């Protein structure tokens, strides 16, 4: 057996279990100062000239900077170029948490105290301005302009104001389609912020160098984004802006573009003081100021024939972008491309808007615009099934995309469509038919997993629900301009291997998977491969570590480099054995003659032969994403080069007295082309499902007047060890030819389908349809009580209080 497809233990596991792995706050640079950021306490406030003196007077403070001190441009470029690195004096802060001054001090305590003094000054001295917090209000005809640097013209945005990005799909004729339908269902759905809650807060250390440049070490997913931001803000050539990733304690998209802000803040302080500056955010600052999943409002409508054939779908999708656009245009785009679900639908109309408000800029989070809209469409598909009297799994199966079908954007699928296998596996593993059709109501009297240990009697009802989705792997047509990746590979004299890539490990198993791919290609063991720290000085811009793209993109680049070095090694063997290089095969640890496998040499000895020949045992690799196309006017095209396919089944017990929902079991099935490391793939599925369960039931970031009320883990509840059900991850493999050894992408799909599956299960259990998440006990209980009241209204005697 080769290396790919084997559950090789993670190559970085030993460092992590011994505590030796160095995250940014574990690094130490001699002479470091501590940095802090003074942040606006209000969502919209005029910023007068900052009285630096009150910060400088704190003992230990060495420097205080504002936007006026920025040597380059006061802009952190992401997709567009509208976000300032710091709010500018004479202008305003546009979200609670926006940075307006930087402090460097000899101790963390002093830096934070000084920043706090400036925040108190702004709280008492900054004129509060009207804040637009609700995207619907911001889109209205008289709404003031939130973002001074960017706006889609009203005429283009269907008359709506404060739109930072607009996308559409127009296929067929939806009005005709709805007229043609036997049944039409519609609904409005709402989702809220989701905080990534990576256990390691954001942090950067900037080290100034002798010639005006800087090296930044830190917690990140996208070193090249940071390099671009440093170049913009410092005004230094990119070659002098070096970025090195430290071990990163979780990202999930929250460390895609957001780290550029602490990076440029630390770099500005480092350049001003000519000392290394450490800027590690507190948990509260991180939650308040860093990007989140966009809150969404989705209005959606499906039309179908009596037999369940989908005819038309119309979607109006609004995302609350926050004050600056950052990644909103591409989050919106992915949502637009997937808005109607993984089904054959001849008539499609989607209008999607990213709307500016005076709230924290939102950005990437695992799923990237799909979880919001798929909560809506997969819930509505179930409502349609009910109206039709059809089983919801059967309705999905009937309309499921197959090889040769066009997607909702007209993309005819030519390979790697494992959707029906995925649906079948989900139904079979969850015993769907039997459980769905068991007599109702189904009382569930097993004890709850929670710590109370209470044994309920007749208070909990069982339900089962499903969801399905497709996921376009990679950046898609919207991101194809940056969809390339580089790699470097070197075989050392003892046969050990070094590889460098431009995408990053953040826990998903990236380094291990790439080591396996390199090992498989060369014919050595994964344990012999070392992945170097990710460093912008080692490989060219390889794009971001997002969109479940790294296995395909960096895997492709690593294979490219490995093939070149393998050719150099095999050339020497071929000469010695008088065989062409094509006649040689590899397996783990060996090179052999294909027609006579007993004739073989160990990889290490082959490397010695190559060294004797002074062969060049190092190479660069490069991989371009396969093509994709998209027309912005019609919204049609081959939007992604390949899709992954997923189906989920959730079983729940709903406590009808308290509204609490316990997930009893979760089955999550994914066609990922090829599992390079099955154990790590299972871990990704389970981890994504649990984040999805949190999104569905617990995670509620509450803001009052534009300020988050409890920006910490007791205010934002994420699932604990006591909350997780048994999760059955199932991998289906319909290989993708251009992916490394057939692999597609997996990081995001497991989160996307959890919330609608749970909402559908709750409906099955207690007959209520929740259209807003999180489905907290209060919301579930209110829905249960409303249903009870509607079902049996008692006439009130005159004079009784309401």
């Amino acid at each position, binding site marked *: 057996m080769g290396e790919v497809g084997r559950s090789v233990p993670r190559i970085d596991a030993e460092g992590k279990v011994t505590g030796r792995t160095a995250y940014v706050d574990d690094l130490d640079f001699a002479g470091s100062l501590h940095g802090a950021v003074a942040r606006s306490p209000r969502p919209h406030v005029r910023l007068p000239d900052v009285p630096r003196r009150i910060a400088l007077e704190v003992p230990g403070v060495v420097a205080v900077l504002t936007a006026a*001190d920025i040597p380059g441009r006061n802009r952190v470029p992401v997709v567009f170029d509208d976000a300032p690195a710091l709010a500018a004096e004479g202008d305003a802060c546009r979200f609670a948490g926006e940075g307006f001054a930087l402090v460097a001090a000899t101790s963390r305590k002093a830096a934070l105290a000084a920043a706090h003094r400036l925040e108190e000054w702004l709280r008492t001295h900054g004129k509060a301005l009207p804040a637009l917090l609700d995207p619907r209000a911001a889109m209205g005809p008289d709404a003031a302009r939130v973002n001074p640097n960017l706006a889609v013209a009203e005429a283009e945005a269907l008359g709506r104001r404060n739109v930072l990005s607009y996308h559409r799909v127009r296929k067929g004729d939806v009005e005709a389609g709805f007229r043609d339908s036997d049944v039409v269902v519609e609904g409005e759905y709402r989702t809220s912020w989701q905080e990534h809650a990576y256990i390691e807060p954001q942090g950067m250390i900037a080290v100034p160098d002798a010639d005006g440049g800087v090296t930044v070490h830190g917690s990140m997913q996208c070193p090249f984004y940071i390099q671009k931001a440093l170049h913009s803000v410092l005004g230094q050539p990119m070659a002098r802006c070096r970025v090195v990733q430290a071990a990163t304690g*979780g990202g999930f998209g929250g460390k895609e573009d957001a780290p550029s802000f602490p990076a440029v803040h630390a770099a500005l302080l480092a350049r001003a003081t000519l000392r290394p500056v450490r800027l590690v955010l507190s948990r509260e600052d991180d939650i308040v100021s860093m990007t989140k999943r966009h809150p969404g409002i989705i209005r959606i409508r499906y039309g179908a024939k009596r037999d369940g054939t989908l005819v038309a779908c119309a979607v109006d999708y609004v995302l609350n972008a926050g004050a600056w656009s950052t990644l909103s245009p591409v989050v919106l785009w992915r949502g637009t491309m997937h808005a109607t679900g993984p089904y054959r639908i001849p008539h499609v109309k989607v209008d999607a808007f990213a709307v500016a408000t005076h709230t924290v800029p939102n950005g990437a989070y695992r799923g990237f615009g799909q979880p919001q809209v798929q909560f809506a469409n997969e819930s509505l598909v179930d409502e349609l099934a009910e109206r039709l009297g059809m089983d919801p799994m059967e309705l999905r199966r009937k309309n499921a995309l197959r090889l040769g079908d066009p997607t909702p954007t007209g993309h005819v699928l030519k390979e790697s469509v494992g959707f029906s296998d995925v649906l079948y596996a989900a139904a079979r593993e969850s015993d769907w038919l039997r459980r769905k059709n068991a007599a109702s109501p189904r009382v569930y009297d097993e004890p709850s997993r929670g710590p109370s240990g209470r044994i309920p009697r007749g208070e909990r009802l069982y339900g089962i629900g499903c969801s399905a989705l497709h996921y376009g792997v990679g950046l898609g047509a919207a991101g194809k301009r940056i969809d390339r990746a580089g790699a470097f590979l070197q075989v050392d004299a003892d046969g050990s291997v070094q590889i460098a890539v431009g995408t990053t490990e953040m826990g998903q198993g990236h380094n291990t998977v790439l080591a396996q791919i390199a090992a498989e290609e060369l014919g050595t063991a994964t344990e012999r491969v070392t992945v170097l720290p990710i460093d912008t000085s080692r490989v060219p811009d390889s794009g971001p570590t997002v969109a479940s793209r790294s296995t395909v993109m960096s895997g492709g680049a690593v294979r490219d480099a490995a093939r070149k070095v393998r050719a150099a090694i095999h050339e020497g063997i071929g000469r010695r054995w008088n065989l062409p290089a094509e006649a040689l095969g590899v397996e783990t640890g060996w090179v052999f003659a294909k027609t006579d496998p007993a004739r073989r040499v160990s990889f290490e000895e082959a490397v010695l032969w190559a060294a004797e020949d002074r062969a060049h045992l190092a190479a660069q690799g490069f991989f371009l994403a396969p093509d994709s196309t998209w027309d912005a006017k019609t919204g049609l095209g081959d939007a992604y080069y390949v899709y992954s396919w997923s189906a989920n089944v959730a079983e729940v017990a709903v406590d009808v007295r308290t509204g609490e929902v316990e997930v009893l079991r979760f089955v999550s099935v994914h066609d990922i082309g090829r599992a390079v490391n099955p154990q790590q793939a299972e871990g990704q599925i389970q*981890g994504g499902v649990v984040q999805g369960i949190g999104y569905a039931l617990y995670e509620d970031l509450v803001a009052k007047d534009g300020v988050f009320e409890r920006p910490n883990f007791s205010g934002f509840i994420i*699932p604990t060890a006591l909350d997780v059900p048994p999760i059955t991850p199932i991998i289906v493999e319909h290989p993708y030819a251009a992916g490394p050894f057939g692999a597609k992408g997996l990081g995001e799909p497991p989160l996307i389908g959890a919330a609608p599956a749970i909402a559908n299960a709750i409906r099955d259990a207690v007959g209520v349809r929740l259209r807003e998440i999180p489905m907290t006990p209060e919301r579930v209980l209110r829905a249960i009580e409303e249903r009870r009241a509607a079902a049996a209204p008692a006439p009130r005697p005159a004079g009784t209080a309401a």
Partner: protein
Amino acid sequence: MKRPARRPARPKRRAAAPSVPAEIEAASRSGPTFRRFAPVEVSLSLNGRTVSARVDPSRTLLDFLRCDCGLTGTKEGCGKGECGACTVLMDGKPVNACLVMAVQAEGAEIVTIEGLADRWCEHRGADAGRLHPIQRGFIEGGGTQCGICTPGFLLAAVALLERTPDPTEAEIAKAFEGNLCRCTGYRKIFESVRRAVEIAKAVR
């Protein structure tokens, strides 16, 4: 106050001096803003060795371990006892080091992630291996992804296994109720603990 190495750049625009609220003005005139406490002697057993130091009484055990002792294996995830990333053993019990003051560790036996392998060897003899079974369990069981929560989970697991060598899943989950993980979904953490139990049994 130390003279800064380089003066901060002057603002590009000249503006009128900003007015500052009176109370901040007064405080800044009255001198240093921090009251310095007299350092306190503290002596404790740290990973099997006696350590003595003088610490500010406001120093947390977490900062003492990470910054004063150079033991960065214990992590800070929230600074207020909500995530468990800073879990260490204090006299055999799991505690959040961010909520323990360094002076409270006087006379206590503290074990951090750096001390786990030695702790196991003490219990089992010198040739029991370089890694504690819980560490091997997490490697083989896939219980670590980004790894930032891992030290906290390992210490909590050791506290459990030293009391209950063969725990049920419910006991494992309960032992971890104070440790948050965002990557794994916890399932492989449970499997890793069971793997550790098997490894420990095999060593007997």
